């Protein structure tokens, strides 16, 4: 129909290797970006921005982080929550120690602390794989959670063991803390998420991303092509943890405003893992699908169900939404075990050859 590449001839490898080789994709992405920049901030109210859009973007970024490690490099991890926590606490300490430096720089720097921790806990991956590796990353998760509770220095000896985000500005506009407007925070989050996603896409389509996928798909052959497993695996842990750390810092600074250790518990790790699996392992767009499915859909259901006449009380609505989400997860995974991203790709493939069943 309208989505096909007929007539779009590529005359150079550069043209063939661009991120969106099909013109309709480029138009679609341009429309999405235009909506995100020009429509969402002016249409969405404070609640939608603060409770739905901002956490969705941050969690999508965390899912990209996990996807680098699990989806692209094939190393299963249950420590995402812990690594996000390292980023959040590192950012909090940086803001405390260097209050005059811009908070954006702190957020970007805090990822490096998470990356360092990630590399240390990635060392077992050199010897063990699969579920056994997942268990060692579980150890990371519990150890880091313990740190967040037992090391009072991390939360500046606050008696409630919580970290509270101070108000910080960018170009004179308040972007963190309770008084910051949703629109200001939204633009900062959007910029960081788009920037990081683009950088990750570049990594993945280049030499380093291919090395990760080689290790994932057939580690013995990868070694024979000259890949050093040590460097490939640890770099995946480092990049993944960096992204997760930045996402963790953003989670507290732009969404929660204040957080306690329980925020970065194993529950968050699982939530991110489910986002990655349902969205599609080894897919960046899938990370956004997964985050939308797990984060936005339950909220929408809680709003829609009463609106559709299911007036059964707030508590029951909440349970109802959980049940529907659970059923949908099972449904989608049966329809396509490789996640929403694969469904999306199949759909596009069918459109390209429509009205014929195959090319």
């Amino acid at each position, binding site marked *: 129909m309208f989505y096909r590449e007929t007539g779009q001839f590529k005359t150079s*490898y550069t043209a063939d290797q661009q991120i969106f080789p099909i013109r309709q994709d480029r138009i679609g992405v341009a429309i999405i970006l235009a909506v995100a920049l020009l429509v969402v901030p002016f249409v969405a109210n404070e609640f939608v921005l603060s409770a739905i859009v901002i956490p969705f973007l941050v969690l999508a970024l965390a899912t990209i982080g996990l996807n680098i490690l699990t989806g692209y490099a094939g190393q299963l991890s249950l420590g995402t929550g812990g690594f996000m926590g390292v980023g959040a606490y590192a950012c909090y300490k940086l803001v405390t120690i260097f209050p005059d430096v811009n908070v954006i720089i702190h957020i970007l720097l805090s990822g490096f602390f998470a990356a360092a921790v990630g590399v240390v806990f990635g060392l077992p991956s050199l010897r063990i794989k699969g579920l056994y590796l997942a268990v060692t990353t579980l150890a990371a998760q519990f150890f880091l959670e313990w740190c967040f509770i037992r090391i009072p220095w991390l939360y500046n000896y606050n008696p409630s063991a919580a970290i509270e985000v101070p108000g910080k500005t960018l170009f004179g506009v308040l972007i963190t803390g309770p008084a910051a407007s949703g629109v200001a925070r939204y633009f900062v989050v959007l910029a960081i998420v788009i920037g990081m996603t683009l950088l990750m896409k570049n990594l993945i389509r280049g*030499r380093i991303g291919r090395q990760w996928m080689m290790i994932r798909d057939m580690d013995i052959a990868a070694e*024979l092509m000259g890949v050093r497993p040590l460097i490939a695996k640890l770099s995946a842990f480092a990049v993944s943890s960096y992204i997760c750390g930045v996402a963790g810092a953003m989670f507290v600074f732009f969404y929660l405003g204040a957080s306690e250790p329980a925020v970065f518990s194993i529950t968050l790790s699982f939530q991110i893992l489910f986002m990655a699996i349902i969205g599609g392992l080894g897919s960046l767009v899938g990370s956004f699908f997964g985050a939308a499915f797990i984060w936005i859909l339950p909220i929408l259901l809680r709003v829609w169900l009463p609106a559709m006449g299911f007036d059964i009380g707030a508590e029951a609505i909440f349970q109802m939404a959980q049940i529907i989400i659970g059923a949908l997860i099972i449904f989608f995974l049966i329809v396509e075990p490789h996640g929403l991203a694969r469904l999306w790709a199949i759909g596009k493939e069918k459109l390209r050859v429509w009205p014929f069943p195959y090319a």
Partner: protein
Amino acid sequence: MNSPAAHFSLHGRDDGLNPGDVLLDVRNVSLAFGGVKAITDISFDIRKGEIRAIIGPNGAGKTSMLNVINGFYHPQQGTISFRGEARRRMQPHAAAASGIARTFQNVALFKGMSTLDNIMSGRTLKMHRNFFWQLLHVGPARDEEIANRRKVEEIIDFLEIQHIRKTPVGKLPYGLQKRVELGRALAMEPDLLLLDEPMAGMNLEEKEDMSRFILDVNDQFGTTIALIEHDMGVVMDISDRVVVLDYGRKIGDGTPDEVKNNRDVIDAYLGVPH
């Protein structure tokens, strides 16, 4: 990196060796796993520019021999000299860096990647732009990617697999998977190409195609090839010299004709007790 106009050459590095000089020399190599002796005191050489077949009944130690050559197994005794450099232990990525490429008995492609990416993965050691260039994917990093893509496209043309360029390799039929795997090894521009049963499980037509590709690689690029193969017709037709293993020992070595008439080889294949 080469300029975009670099002409097509997959010749290995200029190592000062002439065709016929010894490229790889295996001396008195023994390999055991606990009490099981996989290889016992085997010596043979591979000369530059030749097609060298390694044959033998099942369990003779052929694949173990390849694994020793490219560093997966470390022999307890003996040395291996590649381009005159003797070594006992080597890591697989070091073997790759020194110019040894390999295909596997069971296709070992990267299943989640396209044909193009699989062959591009063979260029790993030819790409050097660092992490930060890769992040930005502009300037030198992109030029490097494009220059290597050009090489890969030449291999794709050579192997006649243009139509499956963007297909995930998991969806390809077996014969094409084997061809992509050959392409991936060729992308490394190896000095020595090890092929572990390149024609296993193929029909006659596919075997003929593969034989033609092997001969063309040897002829056009001057690549030295060592292959393990069970199809005696193919082995006798395409190889310059044959080494025969049985129960981890060498029982024959020479031209196809010499090997064909070797009493030990005939006994081994016919199952005469020995």
